[in-house]
């Protein structure tokens, strides 16, 4: 009886073994790129061309960069320019390239209790939310969106404290859901909002402030800091993202829908 009990898992292991054969590239990226479905479209051609698998670890930008610093991933695709520059300046990252951009928007309930709809200044809008003590749901997770949000609070000279300010510690989608349920405001990247449009009552109330610009960068982890990283493959991946083929795939996503990400005009 005991022998048979052992056979099943061992068999399963044997079956699973071949999946360890091909090369694996570890990409730490943000929940916004993963949840939008862009990577599922973008990665297969690269994987086929290079006979590899890209392992996507979707976390907040802060965590993604940390994983790069500790050498637990080979390449990062993130959106928080200040953190990215520090990552490169500290010698952990090399070869940072612009990949794409979208923008942040301030979402709010249709009733708009703080009266911010149509404002052109994002910092002023946050100030009004604070003054009205209207519920605001923050990512609270050191993600790129959270970093941007804190910049905006600072720009508006407001310190967000109080029971109206909820620090969720969750991903973008969960924050949109929470803000929907609590009839609150939230800062979100447009891509995630668009993919949530059918599931939320929240509307875009503030957009177009140049501070809401949201660029994404890709950075390879420095092989001098971490000799084990797959630097050549990481370089190939970066080249692919900025190649005409990769850029065209980003611009065309999602097929037949509003674009979620934009590429830089060359």
């Amino acid at each position: 009886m005991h022998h048979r009990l052992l056979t099943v898992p061992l068999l399963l292991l044997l079956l699973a073994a071949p999946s360890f054969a091909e090369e694996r590239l570890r990409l730490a990226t943000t929940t916004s790129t993963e949840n939008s479905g862009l990577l599922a479209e973008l990665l297969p051609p690269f994987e086929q061309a290079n006979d590899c698998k890209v392992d996507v670890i979707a976390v907040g930008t802060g965590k993604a960069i940390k994983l790069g610093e500790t050498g637990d991933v080979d390449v990062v695709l993130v959106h928080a320019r200040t953190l990215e520059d520090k990552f490169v300046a500290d010698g952990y990252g090399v070869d940072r390239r612009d990949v794409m951009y979208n923008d942040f928007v301030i979402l709010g309930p249709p009733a708009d209790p703080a009266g911010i709809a149509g404002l052109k200044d994002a910092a002023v809008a946050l100030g009004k939310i604070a003054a009205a003590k209207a519920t605001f749901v923050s990512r609270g997770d050191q993600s790129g969106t959270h970093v941007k949000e804190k910049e905006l609070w600072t720009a508006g000279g407001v310190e967000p404290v109080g029971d109206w300010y909820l620090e969720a510690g969750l991903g973008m989608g969960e924050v949109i859901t929470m803000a929907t349920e609590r009839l609150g405001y939230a800062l979100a990247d447009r891509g995630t909002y668009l993919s949530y449009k059918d599931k939320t009552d929240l509307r875009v109330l503030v957009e177009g402030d140049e501070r809401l610009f949201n660029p994404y960068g890709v950075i390879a982890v420095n092989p001098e800091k971490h000799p084990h990283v797959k630097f050549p493959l990481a370089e190939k991946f970066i080249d692919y993202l900025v190649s005409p083929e990769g850029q065209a795939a980003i611009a065309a996503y999602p097929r037949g829908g509003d674009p979620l990400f934009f590429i830089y005009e060359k």
Partner: protein
Amino acid sequence: MGFLFESLQQSLQLIFSLDREVFLAVWTSLYTSLTAIVLAAACGVPFGATVGLLRFPGRGAVLTLFNTLMALPTVVVGLVLFGLFSRQGPLGSLGLLFTPWAMIAGQFVLAIPIVANYTLAAVAGADPRILPTAQTLGAGRLQGVWQLLLEVRFGVMAAIVAGFGRVIAEVGVAMMLGGNIRGYTRTMTTAIALETSKGEFAFGLALGIVLLGVALIVNLFLNLLQQR
């Protein structure tokens, strides 16, 4: 009510269309959990039996320790092993973080105290005459223990089932050590967490139903073994 019903309908459709994503997550959950529980049984059963049979100084402390470890939060195991397996940690050079092996290691740590404790209870509760009887019949020490384990096999099986239940249902270890990588380390539980975060209620629900179904099948299978 309409929302729940519609989601349920959609989720059943996903299951019966054998959606590839669902299938891969089920597969990953199964083989990592089964591997972990086999390893945990291989270590936990002998250990539990030993502690259950022997009387030695400090035995009380060992018992208390194992009872405490049963309550070990999965995220704590995840955190500690993350530190061990990270490239900065002592085992970093193995490159185990974000692979199924890291998840198996975490689940192994979670299951061991349960398997050992339940085995210990089963052995301690067994008829005390079994061991001496076996020995008077000419069995060696190890053979005697083997006979005893066969006598209490229901208890041992319960230990393994309980351990399996914990590892297949947990999400902390799988998320932190596996990284929820699509088609590689995404298990049923991490997929449910992800789909919920994406607002894909039906998909999450589908996986929840499958998870229950898988647990049912595994337990039916073990039941069958017990009745032989």
